[in-house]
């Protein structure tokens, strides 16, 4: 039957142990035994989708004519900006993704205050020119300034942080272009200011030659050039070792305040927290009732192999859940349905094999031959049928991802993953466990042990 049974069992035990470790903890830590420092850390907290814990989903679409091409880079920049803005609101676990070539989907699970997020997303970013004296902050640093957009009180920084003075905002910019310096070696940014801005800028640069003028987008430093000379004509140049790409990216940020493409909200879904919790409980109850009935059926009908199948389904569930937690896949309600269906597919593989096994036993083969034949003969059906299921799941996933229909995505992902893992458990785990059980029990009465 199986020659290297011990090796197989060891492998299964190791996989199940690893999976259980991930299932039962919210963080995986491996500590370096010599230095006692964490060697490897990964958070494996389960992620519940909007439909299970409530929250907000918005679909944003580039607000430009449909026949106009948008390059993927600007969509990515826009995505980053939306991400930064909503991160600043202190919303945890939000996920912002580009969906297709002109849409961005944002998900905020567990969010109660949906209004503030929606307003923030639609704002155009705030570009500020800040006087930081002699200090040149690194790009990405968060600065606190004395400017507030609504004309009200500026946000108070944590104590100990310096508040810098904002000279003017991006509203004063008239035009921004990318050019090359006289030597033609480096790219530079040329800008022109509106008349009021030109005056403010002229006065400031005349008085502060040698100081740093930091450019801040949504309170985050994007560049900190030094003032080389007074700029009084309303036109100036920013140098700083730009490449062609970085100069263009920077120009885009200056030009549009922030968003490289204007965005509008085309779809909003809000799910209240009570509805989410209710769905979670009900689907869990439904799942366990269904699974219990199915397990009972398998054991009563297939006897010994039935018990093995139920065991391998449990192993399958343990592994699938671990894969979900490890890769931070979001669990959604259709995802639960997809999981149950793929459990069906996993059982189907077992049933195909067991039916074959019984047939072979009835036709008078001995046990070892019957087990071998059961697997080899059922394999082509299992392979072809599961591949067909995976093909459809992939098409569904593609459909879901172009429209930010994360519900569809979640379903197809669980289905595909479940089918793939179920192939492993049906072919490898069930067979190994069955061989082990047969070795231990040495059944003689096929009628009783196999229910033929």
């Amino acid at each position, binding site marked *: 039957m199986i020659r290297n049974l011990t090796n197989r069992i060891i492998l299964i035990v190791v996989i199940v142990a690893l999976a259980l470790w991930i299932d039962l903890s919210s963080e995986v830590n491996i500590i370096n035994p010599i230095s006692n420092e964490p060697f490897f850390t990964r958070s494996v907290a389960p992620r519940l989708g909007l439909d299970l814990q409530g929250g907000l989903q918005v679909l944003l679409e580039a607000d430009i004519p449909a026949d106009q091409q948008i390059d993927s880079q600007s969509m990515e920049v826009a995505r980053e900006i939306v991400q930064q803005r909503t991160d600043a609101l202190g919303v945890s676990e939000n996920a912002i993704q580009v969906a297709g070539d002109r849409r961005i989907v944002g998900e905020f699970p567990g969010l109660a205050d949906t209004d503030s997020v929606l307003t923030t997303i639609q704002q155009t970013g705030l570009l500020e020119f800040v006087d930081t004296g002699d200090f040149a902050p690194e790009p990405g640093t968060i600065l606190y300034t004395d400017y507030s957009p609504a004309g009200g009180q500026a946000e108070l920084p944590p104590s100990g942080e310096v508040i810098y003075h904002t000279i003017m905002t991006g509203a004063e910019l008239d035009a921004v272009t990318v050019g090359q310096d006289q030597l033609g070696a480096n790219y530079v940014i040329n800008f022109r200011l509106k008349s009021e801005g030109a005056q403010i800028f002229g006065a400031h640069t005349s008085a502060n030659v040698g100081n740093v003028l930091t450019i801040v987008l949504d309170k985050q430093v994007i560049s900190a050039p030094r003032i080389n000379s007074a700029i009084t004509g309303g036109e100036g140049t920013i140098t700083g070792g730009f490449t062609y790409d970085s100069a263009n990216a920077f120009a885009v940020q200056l030009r549009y305040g922030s968003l490289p493409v204007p965005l509008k909200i085309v779809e909003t879904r809000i799910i209240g927290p009570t509805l989410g919790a209710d769905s979670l409980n009900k689907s869990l109850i439904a799942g366990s009732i269904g699974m219990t009935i199915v397990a009972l059926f398998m054991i009563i009908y297939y006897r010994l192999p039935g018990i093995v199948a139920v065991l391998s389904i449990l192993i399958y569930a343990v592994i699938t859940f671990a894969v979900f937690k490890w890769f931070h896949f979001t669990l959604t309600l259709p995802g639960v349905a997809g999981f149950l269906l793929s459990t069906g597919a996993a059982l189907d593989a077992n049933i195909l094999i067991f039916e074959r096994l019984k047939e072979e036993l009835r036709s008078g083969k001995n046990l070892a031959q019957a087990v071998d034949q059961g697997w080899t003969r059922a394999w082509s059906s299992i392979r072809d049928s599961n591949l067909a299921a995976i093909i459809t799941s992939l098409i569904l996933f593609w459909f879901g991802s172009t429209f930010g229909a994360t*519900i569809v995505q979640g379903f197809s992902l669980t289905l595909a993953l479940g089918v793939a893992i179920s192939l492993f458990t049906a072919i490898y785990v069930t067979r190994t466990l069955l061989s082990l059980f047969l070795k231990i029990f040495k059944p003689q009465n096929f009628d009783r042990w196999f229910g033929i």
Partner: protein
Amino acid sequence: MIDILSKRYYYFLFSLLVIVPGLIFLAVDGLPLSIDFTGGSLFEIAFEEGKTIGTEGINAIYESVGIDDAQVTTTNNGSVLIRSSFLTEEARNQVVTAMEVESGGSVTVISFDSVGPTIGAQVASRAALAVGVAALGVVIYITLAFRKVENAFRYGVCAIIAMAHDVAVVFSVAGVGARFFEWQMDALFLTALLTVIGFSVQDKVVVFDRIRENANLLRRLEYETLVNHSIVQTLQRSINTQLMTVEFLLLALALFGGVTLQEFAVILLVGLLSGTYSSIFVAAPILVLWEKREWTTWFRRRPNP
């Protein structure tokens, strides 16, 4: 051995009886497309105990923000469901504020779905494409997987006919559901439909695979007997997999899984059942019918079966 195939025309009749009524409902009532495909808003709210506003009040509030097609229904658990055309974020805020003023209590948002009109149309066309691509992918796959069998192409075509049968059954169920339970075709319906397609093919492959295997072993048998043989051999598996496991799981989901998944679970339940049924009672009989070229005798006097 049970003779399944000889009664094939009764099975076709039975399928028609299942499919036609629902399709008539769909033809009469139109496709019950949800806002996922048509665009629009679905707003579910709950008023504070004893501080509710009537349907006219809600309609008036909606009209004040320029929307005059609001339809208000009350759900079983006392919340209010309002369907309307696309509601922007500002309009929604205005509506909630106006409702709070009018009712004198707070208004809880249970759920809010709002889909812009252009996006809905795009989803609908892309969905049709997804179904088409899935069907095509499957025919190619089956033709390839059965390339060593005589007339491999027939198996692919029969799988597609049976798949079309299952899609028709799913639509029929949706039509009946729309007429009697106010069901709608939404993104989840589409998901269910595509799943039915996937599993339907899976089922056909299992039966066809048995035919493929038997064709090598039992060369002398007549084709009809061979196919009948193969069906009977896989019958136990079909019953156990579909009825006893998958259908039980879905039934549990339909009964206890809460409103969100109920419709989805029922459609999957019927669709997957149809998938199993059609492998045995549609796809296999058509294979035989094709082999015997039975259409040549359809309009003559039927020979005794």
